[in-house]
Each structure stands twice: as structure tokens, then as C-alpha cells.
């Protein structure tokens, strides 16, 4: 089902996720912006989280702080991850 609620940045971040993790049969519009990326939502796991960390740096030049709790919030959903990118991008 098409989802038209993505902002341009969210679409960009969604594409980064899809490319970094080579998710098959899925487009940016299939990702619910508020749904959890990990576990029940998109179903990503802890290794995917490491890859997303590397992709964020490569694509947007974002260096994450080592505070684990804070990162968990940033990685909770596409919307929150996009908010992080908006705030911290240095590309």
C-alpha cells in the first residue's frame, strides 16, 4: 500500500536503509515512518544496526556519540532517524 506521508528527507533516509541493507522487494514508500525499524516493524536486527551506523556516516557524515540509550531512540523509527539526520548532517 502506497504511503504518501514521507517527507523528502525521510524518503532519502529510507533509500539509504534499503541500499545499505540491500532490502529486497521493498521501496521507500513501503516503510511506515512511525513503525519500529527493529524487531516487529521492519524487522531489522543488531547487525543491521551496525551497518546503519556505518551508512549514516558514509552518506551524511554523522558521527554518533557512544551513548547507547540515546542511539536507541534515534534508531527507533524512520521518522526519528530522519530527525537525527536533519539535525546532525555534515555532508
Amino acid at each position, binding site marked *: 500500500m502506497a504511503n504518501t506521508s514521507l517527507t523528502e528527507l525521510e524518503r532519502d533516509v529510507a533509500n539509504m536503509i534499503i541500499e545499505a541493507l540491500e532490502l529486497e522487494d521493498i521501496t521507500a514508500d513501503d516503510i511506515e515512518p512511525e513503525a519500529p525499524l527493529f524487531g516487529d516493524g521492519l524487522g531489522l536486527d*543488531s547487525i543491521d544496526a551496525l*551497518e546503519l551506523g556505518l551508512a549514516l556516516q558514509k552518506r551524511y557524515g554523522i558521527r554518533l556519540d557512544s551513548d547507547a540509550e540515546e542511539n536507541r531512540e534515534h534508531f527507533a523509527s524512520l521518522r526519528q532517524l530522519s530527525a537525527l539526520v536533519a539535525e546532525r548532517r555534515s555532508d
Partner: protein
Amino acid sequence: MTSPQRKRAPRHWSAISESGSLRGIQLMLAIYDRFGARAYQGVLFLVGLYYWWRRPIARRASKEYQKQLKAFCPSVFLPRLTTVRHFTTFGTAILDKVLALYGRIAPESIQIEQRETLRAAIDAGQGGIIVVTHLGSHEICQALGRLRRDLKMSVVMHTHHAQRFNSLFNDIDRPLSVEIIEVSDMGPATAQRLQARVAEGGFVVIAADREPIEAGARRRWIDFLGRPAPFPEGAFWLAMLLHCPLYLLVCARQGQTHHVHFESLGDATGLSRRERSVWMDNTMAHFVTRLEHFCCRYPLQWFNFYPFWQSEKQNARPPR
């Protein structure tokens, strides 16, 4: 998350107290400093006997290992009082670790078997993952950081668990080029840090022969000395994510000499996602084969004193 393995936690190595208490290690170090190596060995034998008597889990784990080892390489020589000697060898290794961290291992006593491989790995500037094991004392190799100042290392380990051991070393002069990273903090931020390390030609040091503590951490069952045992996948994943070479480093003792073995386990540079699962299968199997080789060569220097093989059925987790 309370998963079934919680109930069995007391048998997991992390739940078995590091019974070599801080005070004990300090006392042993004092004995070594005041009365010399011979006195140290004498006292160590008594300590070994005490452990044999008072630590049934460790004793049974040692016996199980000996049984597997004997069946796997029948020509292996195990001295009498094997289990006590296994413990005392561990005590010697602990002293070596302490001396190494204080920079007190004489460079002449370290013999690097594959000097060329090591030099090439450093000089290539590609960095990499260095897999270490609980065979011998890889801490000796932190002494390498003193020999080659340009060798930068990040050591990924369970610092919470080893805290008591580490608290011995608040006063040591750890080379600036060695950084310690807590393994359970492993997340996107740590991945970035480790990537920066490798990008500057440095190395990430991580053990690959102890079951992960974290529930849900990836591991796989591989035949080790003739029976399947769980091995953590972490080190191998890191090599794949960071697209870098993977090496094995073993440092074991023979008489007064520390033998350093350094060899290539594989290279994940340019590996595609499609190739991952095959690479993982092959590289982990190769690693375990090499570990077996070194167990046969240094039979009493493998120090995992918890039920390493366990029951496969009991611990099986659903595939992820």
C-alpha cells in the same frame, strides 16, 4: 527479556565467579617479586590443588576438555595430575598477563613465528580484525604495541566482567595506542569507532572462543575437538561489516619462551552480501580447525573453565 537460558545462567561462564580474587592475584604477584619464579610455582601448585578440591565446575570442565582432546589427537601428551597442572598453567598465564600489562615481559623471550606475515599486515596499512582466543595469554601481544609504536589496537572485551582483574592495572602505563572497548556496548556508534580504527590502518582485537553473554547474540555450533560447541560470530561479522582482512593471533608459552603465532584467517575486503554466508561458514570452520591445532600443540594452555560443549538441544535457539 527472560528467555529460557536465563534459568541456566549459573552455568554460563559469565555467571561463574572469577574465583581468582584480586587479593589473591596481588598476593601471588608479591610472592613472585619477593621470592622469585620457583617459589611462585611452588605456591601455585598448592593453589591448583585447592581449586581442584573447591571448584567442581572448573574441574569437570577441564576433564571434559582433556577427554575431547585425547580422542581428537591421541598422540597428545598430558602429564600426571593433569587437571591440577591445567589450573597451575592457568596461574602461570595470569602472571604472564600481569607482567605483560606492566611491560615486564622481556622482548628476548618473545618469539614471533610469522614475523613476515605480521609485518606485512601492519605495513599494508589496511588494518584488520585480529581474532584472539583463551589459549595462552594474548595480552603478551599488547607488548607488541610497545615494540611498534605505530601499531594501533582497539581491544573489544567484557570489561564489566573483567573489572576486578583490570582494577589491578589502574596504575599501569598502557600504551596510548591500545584502546579498550566494552563488547556489550556494541552498537552503531561503536561500529563507527572501530571503522575509524581500521581506516587508519589499525587493528580490532576480539576473542572468538567464548559464548556471547548477550541473549540473542549470534553464535553457531561447530565441531570442536570432535563435538559441536557454540562459537560467537561477532569477530567474523566485524570483518564483513568493515570489509577488512581477518587474522588469528595466538600467544602460548613453551618453557621460558612466548611463541606468537600470527596468521591470516581470511579477507572480507570487497565481499558482497551474497557471499557472506559462505564466507562465514568457511572462515569460522577454518578458525576452529586452527584452534584445534593449537590445543594439540599447547594442550594445557586452553583456559575455558566452564562447560564449553553443553547440551546442544538445551541451548538451541530459533534461527534468526
